[in-house]
């Protein structure tokens, strides 16, 4: 017996659950405005905007922020190219071991970050690759590829396979088909996948810890900062920035893929 309306008890429980999940985020925002800088005292003794100015002038924030943006951008670019190629292979051809390979591609996102991190760290050490920005990027690319792949493969399966053949039939070479037919139909899926990948990479801590040398990305800088009781609200200001940088792309990705059916499935 399914009733359309849930009882009041269920509603309250659901509300409490959501509050438990999301109120801490609001608290982080709140503490970015507190006048008290040593401990997180509730309620805050007063509100101020000064921490935004302080954060702006703190020289130690900018290098990690820049590094994070760099890592996320390059890892996303690598993921878009490789993820799209894998999706093409998986959606268009059948070969022996295809399902197993598909599982292997998805594995980095299913595995705990600690495992991925350890595996990458020992692999880099074995190959004598010094830890650098590039090892962080490679580490992030492993799970970014999965996100792009998932988006692209879903879109490719919905596309009528005939349109690629139609393009070739009309005289287009492989590059023209890619440029004029595949890319426009795949574009929003790639963009959405890329944005999610960027957001995921931007706040990644675990794999970064294992694959970084002396560099620290923004999330790692924040982790270190929380231990020190000096200008704590600055960390919260940075947290708001991280929130904006990661949440907005996810929101955009959601809206981009939501209407995907209308553009991709119209061939039938």
């Amino acid at each position, binding site marked *: 017996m399914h009733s359309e309306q849930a009882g009041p008890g269920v509603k309250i429980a659901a509300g409490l659950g959501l509050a438990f999940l999301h109120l801490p985020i609001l608290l982080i925002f709140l503490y970015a405005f507190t006048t008290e800088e040593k401990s997180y005292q509730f309620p805050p003794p007063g509100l101020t905007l000064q921490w935004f100015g302080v954060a702006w002038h703190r020289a130690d924030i900018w290098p990690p922020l820049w590094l994070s943006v760099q890592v996320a951008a390059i890892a996303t670019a690598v993921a878009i190219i490789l993820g799209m190629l894998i999706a093409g292979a998986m959606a268009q051809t059948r070969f022996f071991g295809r399902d197993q390979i598909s599982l292997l591609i998805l594995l980095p996102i299913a595995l705990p970050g600690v495992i991925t991190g350890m595996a990458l760290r020992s692999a880099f050490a074995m190959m004598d690759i010094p830890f650098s920005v590039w090892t962080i990027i490679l580490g992030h690319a492993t799970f970014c590829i999965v996100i792009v792949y998932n988006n692209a493969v879903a879109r490719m399966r919905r596309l009528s396979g005939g349109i690629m*053949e*139609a393009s070739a*039939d*009309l005289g287009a070479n492989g590059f*023209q088909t890619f440029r004029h*037919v595949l890319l426009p139909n795949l574009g929003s899926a790639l963009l959405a996948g890329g944005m999610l990948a960027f957001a995921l990479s931007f706040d990644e801590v675990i794999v970064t810890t294992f694959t970084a040398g002396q560099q620290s990305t923004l999330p790692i800088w924040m982790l270190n900062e929380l231990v020190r009781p000096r200008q704590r609200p600055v960390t919260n200001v940075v947290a708001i920035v991280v929130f904006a940088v990661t949440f907005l792309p996810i929101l955009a990705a959601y809206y981009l893929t939501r209407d995907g059916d209308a553009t991709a499935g119209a061939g039938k």
Partner: protein
Amino acid sequence: MTPAVEFNAVSRHFGTVKAVDGVDLTIAEGAFFAMLGPSGSGKTTCLRLISGFEKPTAGGIRIFGQDVGAVPPNRRNVNTVFQDYALFPHMTVRDNVAYGLMVKGVDRRSRLEKAEELLALVKLPGYGERKPGQLSGGQRQRVALARALINEPRVLLLDEPLGALDLKLREAMQDELKALQKRLGITFVFVTHDQHEALSMADSLAVFNDGRIAQIGTPEDVYSRPQTRFVADFVGSSNVLPPELTAALGGPSKWASLRPEAVRLVPMGHDGTVKTVRYLGAGSRVVLEIGGTEIAAMVPAGQPIPETGAQAAIAFDPRALHVMAE
């Protein structure tokens, strides 16, 4: 005259599946050629062998005398109207039609002008700004046709072109395709599983069965003089008589075919039982069982129709009995 398409012992095997198996075929230039057969008979694979999306595992294909074994689909002067139309969903109708010229590097103005011309040819002038998703099935088909014609192919391939349309539209499109082919004078090769479509549109046709050509000829040939039981049964559902019955009905002791419309019901003659009667408007299709074989007769409207279960007999002009090789 060089034939438009020539198959020389062409096979296309997928592992153990012989989709096309040793097919010899010649399609004359300017022909309206049909490949007819049930699904899985190899007709669509043959079409894809011409367009280049399949490569033969044996044998050779020539298009206007040129061996196309090493020519990829995008370099063949052959275009296809796909079964699901395969229009580009993100482009307007005009850009869809102009696509073939765009990838050739024709400038925007001339290619859009040409696209308008072709849209007028397929009776869709003024639809250029729309997206394929805003068109009906019949309109999409016309766009697919215009798009395939813009490169002025010497051979146009049509894969079940009318399969997705409703009956009335299908009949109208049959006439239109036929008229278009006459006007353009290019070779049309179309695949269908519908024998009426093949008979009414084609000027020659090949009947496919199990990856091989069962018979090739004019519609008249194939319909009136089927060479095998399969052809007799598949093209227009002819009566197929086993050797004993042929002999009993006054013919040689061989397999024979007999068109339902050649069979009359008479008061006296070879006895049978009426099994089913189906009213078809212009007449009724009466199926009798005679010596364990079902024989259909077309009784024109106005003549008496026997009851199911009644005894009846048949008569026919001996010339209508067509003896088959197998």
